[in-house]
C-alpha cells in the first residue's frame, strides 16, 4: 500500500508515491534523483546521509519519508542553488577537506548547521559538532581547517 509524500526539497515541491517504510534518503535519491546524499552505514553512525530537515542536521537513513511529509529538506544540491558555492563548500575546496568525497556532502551539511548555531567555533567545538560524521580518507584535520575557513568567510561577508 503506497502513500503520497510531499516534501519541499531545496525549495522545490516533491510529491511521490512511496511505500510507508521508504527511508527519507531513498526518497531523496530514488524519487527526487538527488544522489548527493549518500548511504554509508544505514544505522545513523557515519553521517554520509546528513541533510537539513526543518533546518536541523539529521541522518536521512534512519528517518522515514512519511515522517518528513509536509516538511522542508535541504540537501547538498540545494546549498549552491544560486550557482555560487556556500562558504562551507568553498572551505572544503580551498583547504583540501575531501579526498574520495563520499562523506563530504554529509560533513558539509553538518558544518552548515554548526556555523548557523555557532559562527566562531573553536577546533574542539568543530570536532564535537562533526563527531557523528565519519571520514576514512582525510584524517579530519583538513576538514577542521575547511570549517574554520568557512567561519572566517561568513564573518567577512557579514562585516
Amino acid at each position, binding site marked *: 500500500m503506497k502513500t503520497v509524500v510531499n516534501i519541499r526539497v531545496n525549495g522545490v515541491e516533491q510529491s511521490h508515491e512511496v511505500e510507508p517504510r521508504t527511508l527519507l534518503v*531513498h526518497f531523496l535519491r530514488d524519487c527526487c534523483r538527488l544522489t548527493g546524499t549518500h548511504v554509508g552505514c544505514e544505522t545513523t553512525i557515519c553521517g554520509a546521509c546528513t541533510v537539513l530537515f526543518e533546518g536541523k542536521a539529521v541522518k536521512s537513513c534512519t528517518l522515514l519519508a512519511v515522517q518528513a511529509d509536509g516538511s522542508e529538506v535541504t540537501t547538498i544540491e540545494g546549498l549552491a542553488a544560486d550557482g555560487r558555492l556556500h562558504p562551507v563548500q568553498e572551505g572544503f575546496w580551498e583547504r583540501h577537506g575531501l579526498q574520495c568525497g563520499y562523506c563530504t556532502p554529509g560533513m558539509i551539511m553538518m558544518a552548515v548547521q554548526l556555523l548557523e548555531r555557532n559562527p566562531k567555533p573553536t577546533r574542539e567545538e568543530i570536532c564535537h559538532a562533526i563527531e557523528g560524521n565519519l571520514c576514512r580518507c582525510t584524517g579530519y584535520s583538513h576538514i577542521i581547517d575547511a570549517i574554520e575557513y568557512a567561519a572566517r568567510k561568513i564573518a567577512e561577508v557579514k562585516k
Partner: protein
Amino acid sequence: MSAVKAKGYFGKPMKRIEDPRLIKGIATYVDDITLPGMLHAAVLRSPYAHARINNIKADAAKASPGVVGVFTGADVNDKCGLVPCASPMPDSKIPKHTVLASDRVYFVGHPVAVVVAVDRYAARDALDFIEVDYDPLPVVSDAEKALQKDSPLTHPEFGTNVAFTWSVANGGLNAAFKRAHRVIKQRMVHQRLTPMAIEPRGCVAAWHAGEGTLTLYTSTQIPHLVRTLLPGMIGVPENKIRIVAPEVGGAFGSKLNLYAEEALCSHLAQRLGAPVKWIESRRENAAATIHGRDQIGDYEVAVKKDGTLLAIRSKTLADIGAYCQLNTPAIPTLTGLMLTGCYKCKAMRMDVVGVYTHKMATDAYRGAGRPEATYVIERLMDIIADELKLDPVKVRLKNFPKPTEFPFDTLTGLTYDSGNYQGALKKAQQISNWNKLTRQRDEARKSGKLFGIGLSTYVEICALGPSKMMSAGGWEWGCVRIEMSGKVTVITGATPHGQGQETSFAQIAADQLGVPIEDIVVMRGDTAVAHYGRDTYGSRATVIGGTAIVMCIDKIIAKARKLAAHLLDTKEKSVEFRGGKFFVKGKPKKALTWKQLAPEAYVAKNIPKNWEPGLEASSFFEPPNCTYPFGTHIVAVEVDRDTGEVRIVKYVTVNDCGYQVNPLLVEGQVQGGIAHSIGQALFERTVYDENGQLLTGEFMDYAMPRAKDIPQYLMDSTVTPSPSNSMGIKGVGEAGTIGATPAIANAVMDALSPLGIRHLDLPLTPEKIWRAIAPAKVK
C-alpha cells in the same frame, strides 16, 4: 622541479580540479547509476562460520512480490568460474572458492543465494523467505589453534589448515646470533583490521545483447585488472568487456580485488537480459569485504652492546581467513621484504605460515604487509634501546646506512633507491623541540604523570613495481592527445579514487606542454577510454602513471617539432620548444603554439612527407625499480592513570617522498594515513568469537577514529629525489599508515615504562592499558 620552489604548476599546493562536482553532490558513484529496466540484487549470506548446506528452499522467495529470480550455487556455479587468486605460493593449497557456496559455507558472510527483484526493498524482503537447511560444523577462528593436531579444518579436503609457507633469508644467521652480546625476543600480534571505506562496494552490470558485450560499473581500484580476470569467470572475452570505475568512495586496498558479487552480477545481467545492480550494506562490507593485517610473530634480534643490529629472525603466522582473495598470500611477503626497515643488518630470516581459519579472507589493507614490518622493527628498536639503556635516537642513527651508501642493497634483495634517514630524523627532532620535549617528559614523570615519547623512522616500498615483481605486470599506461582545438586530453591507466590525480596529472602535463592547466582534462577509470592500465594500489599511481604521461608528452613534442619545422620552413634540429611554443632558435617572436599546430596536424593538408597526422601518443612506463620513501614520526602522549586513556599531546612528522607534485595533496595523504594508524594503534580490532561470529560487523562496534581523536600535526618534509623516474618522485599514499603506528605505540609504551610494562599488543585501548596498569600499580 622542487617541492620547495614551485616552477610552473609542479610543486604548487593547488586545490583540486575534481572537487567542485564532489562538494556540490553531483558526482556519480556506482549507486547513483540508474539504467533503464535495471533490476536489484540482494545476497543471502551465511550466519554460520562453518556449516554443511543440506538444502535450500527458494520457492517462497521466488513468489515474493517483485522478485524476478532467486539463484543458488547449484544455479550459477557451473556458469560462473572461481574467484581468482593472482599470487599463489608454490606450495599453496587454494580452495575452490565459487561465487555462491555450493555444499558448504566457511565464514560468516559467505554468499549462499542471490535474489534479483524490481527494487532494492523487494530484493531484500525476499531474502527472508529463503530457507537454508544448515548443519553446523566445527569452527576454528584462531590461527594458533588451527595448527594444533585436533583442530577443526577450514577445508577438510586439504587435511591441514596450512595454506602456504614462505621464507626469506640472507646472511649467516646462526653466526650473527652467536656473536651477539644480547638476544632480545618479543612476540607481537598484529590485530585484524577492517578497511571500512565509507562507500561500501557495489556494481551495476549491463549486458548488451546485440553486440554481445558487457559493461560493468563497479566500485573498484582496479578496473583494468578486473577486465583481465573477469573473462575467465564469466566466459565473455576481454575485448567484449568494458569496466567502469566511476567515482569511488574510498578503498584503502579493500577494492583491489575481483569479488564474487562482481562476477555474479555480470552473469545475471547476461542471463536475465537486464541491468543488475548490487549495493553492499555496511554489515556485508564488514563481513565479506577483505580484512587486513592479522599476523602473529615471534621476533628475535641479535645486537651488540652499543646497539648495533646484527640479525633479525621472525616466525610468523598469517591468519588469512577462509580462502585466498586476489593477493592474500602476497601480503606477508611484503612484511618479509621490508622487515629490516631502514637499518643495516648482517643476517635475517622470516618464515611465514599462512593459516586458514573460518573468517573473511585477508588481503591488502592500506600499507599491505609493510605496516607490520615497520611496526616490528621500530618497536624492536625501542625495546633494544630500553634493554641496553641506550637512547632510541642513537640506536637508530647507529644502524642507518649513510646517505652516500645509496642505492642501498638490502638483505632481502631490494635496492633502496635513495635516502637520507638522518636528515629526516634531525629535522623532526628540531621541529619537535626534542630537548624541551624530553625535559617535559622528565617533569611530567616527576609529578607522577604517565608521559611518553615515541619515535618511528620508517622506510616503505612504493611504486609497485617492476613487472618482474608483480603477478600481472607492474608498468602503467598513459595517453596524451592534443585535440584539434589545442585542448589537451590526458588519459591514465591509473585509477584514482580520492588521491587527486585529475589535478596532479594535469599539473605535470601543463608544465611539460607549456599550456594553462584549464586546457587539460584528465580521464581515468573506464577501460573504454583508458585502454590499458594496472590501476591504483601500492602508492604507485603518481610515480608510474605520471611518468607514463611524461613519456607520452615527450613523444608528442618530438612529433610536433617535425611539423613545426615544416611550417616554419626550417630544419627539425633548428626548432626550439619552450613555454608551449615552437620557434626557430633565437627567433622566439615567430612561434607556433599548440593551438596553431593542432589544426594543421589534423587537417593534414600541409604536413611533412611521411608524417602521420594527429598529435597523440601513448606509452607504457616500466619502472626500473620500486621507490623507497621514508621519514620520521615523533609522538608524545599522556596516559590517564585512572582510565587508561591515551591523549596525543604532540605529533611531528617529516616525510620524504622525493619531489612533490602537489604538497597540499601530499599533506592530505599523510594525514589520512596517520588517521588509519591512530585507529590501529588505539582503537581498531576486528573481532571474531570462538564460533567464528563477527562481533565488529558495524560502525557501532568497529571503533574508527573520529575528529576529536586527531591531534594537530607539525608536518614538514625533506626532499631526496628518486633516481628511478624522470620526475624524482616516490609516492605517498600509504606512508602515514606505515610510519605512524609504531611511533604511537612506542610513545604509549614509553609512558608505561616507569611501571615496568615493556610491551602491549595493539590496539592500546583504555581498557587494555588500565588492566595493565592496575597490577603494575600494586607492585
